């Protein structure tokens, strides 16, 4: 592994969260590799927003994410103790959950925020404050680590996809075309 990383870089990994419309929660759509957060937003647009709809994107370096599945939490009994520095200032953490086993193209969804000194503390608080009954996966992300696209980006980054209707399958009338051909072709 170290051998290949000295020969090449594919850049660090960033996780992307997409908000379809104002008022809807951000959902994790997948990851891109990028040299920094700004490029992660641009790459994220190209990879995940070739089609509508998107109003806002968040990008966060994967190394800032605390991820735990329900099975992991059950097996670990208690979360690992952390060394919390005495003067650690509380900061805001975004809480994400996966609550369904249904087929989906998205993973965890933003459900709210908590203030805590560490990510583990944030997870413990989140388990108390949010509905934790049917949660299969938790993600805890410090707000300070999230790069957010701006309102001004909407027009240049996300709106062009709206006009590219030829990317949509419903643009093609092949089903009715074939029906018509079969109806008029003597078998």
């Amino acid at each position, binding site marked *: 592994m170290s051998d290949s990383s000295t020969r090449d870089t594919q850049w660090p990994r960033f996780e992307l969260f997409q908000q379809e419309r104002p008022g809807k929660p951000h959902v994790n759509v997948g990851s891109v590799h990028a*040299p920094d957060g700004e490029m992660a937003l641009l790459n994220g647009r190209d990879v995940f927003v070739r089609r509508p709809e998107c109003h806002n994107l968040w990008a966060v370096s994967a190394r800032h994410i605390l991820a735990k599945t329900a099975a992991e939490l059950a097996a670990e009994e208690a979360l690992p103790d952390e060394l919390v520095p005495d003067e650690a200032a509380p900061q805001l953490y975004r809480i994400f959950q996966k609550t369904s086993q249904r087929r989906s193209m998205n993973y965890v969804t933003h459900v709210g925020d908590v203030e805590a000194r560490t990510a583990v503390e944030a997870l413990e608080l989140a388990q108390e404050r949010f509905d934790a009954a049917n949660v299969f996966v938790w993600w805890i992300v410090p707000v300070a680590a999230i790069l957010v696209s701006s309102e001004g980006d909407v027009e240049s980054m996300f709106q062009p996809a709206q006009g590219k209707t030829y990317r949509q399958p419903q643009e093609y009338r092949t089903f009715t075309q074939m029906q018509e051909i079969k109806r008029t072709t003597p078998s």
Partner: protein
Amino acid sequence: MSEAAQLQQFEERIACGEKIEPGDWMPEKYRQQLIRMISQHAHSEIVGMLPEGAWITRAPNLRRKMVLLAKVQDEAGHGQYLYHAAETLGISREEMIDALLEGKAKYASVFNYPTLNWADNAIIGWLVDGAAIKNQTMLARCSYGPYSRAMVRICAEESFHMKQGKEMVIQYAQGTPMQRQMVQDALNRWWWPTLMMFGLPDSESYNSPQLIRWGIKTRTNDELRQEFVNELVPELLALGLTVPDPELCFDEESGNWIYGPIDWDEFWQVVKGNGPCNEERMTARRQAHEDGRWVREAMLAYAEKQEAGLAV
């Protein structure tokens, strides 16, 4: 918990339709199978850009050009979704890319055939993407969460790929004698490589039983291949096209279109690197990788300087 107990719990979770997510316990063999499948799949999307990409500058009109550009861009995106899914299993992107460029990793053999005329893009869209959708629709139900999600996303987009190809085939099949000849020629060359995409017959596919038990695959190669042939043949015939299989016939009893023997020797020749375009595809990939190296390095150096507060 003992390994046997973990395995039992793992299989129970799959049996009741739960998704396995990154971080969950999984058998090493499950992890290895998925890394192999998903990375091969990712490489296929990336190499799959080449046969059609070659025609972007020669599209017959602006609409076809925009559609083809969008399709090839989607394939790049699909490669990204899939590399992401494979990374969650503990392999790095550098390792996967190196394996491809060093010729250690496989990709779909169908992309080692040349695109000789414009109608090849039409037939690839309908047949090759259509065959891929069969496989991907199955994999969208697979037990590993990240692979399943990538497939759901891909299937939604592949539907556009198939329809744009089918639209062209319909148009050319009803067009001028030259257009009909062009699309028939493309069909003649792509029919058999497309059927091979479903993989070896069930009788020789040793991986299948375990892949099915662990919910990675849920249907066999032959089942999917037969379903594909059954759907495609009546439509090709209705368009007045000829399927290049003299033994093809309809079996009243089973309702299946029975196809002639597939040339698995040819399949293995192409897998082993002796297909018409293996060399060309790998040369193009290596060239793109080398040409992009300075960009990757420069942008990383810039980002590192920014982070260290040294940039002006």
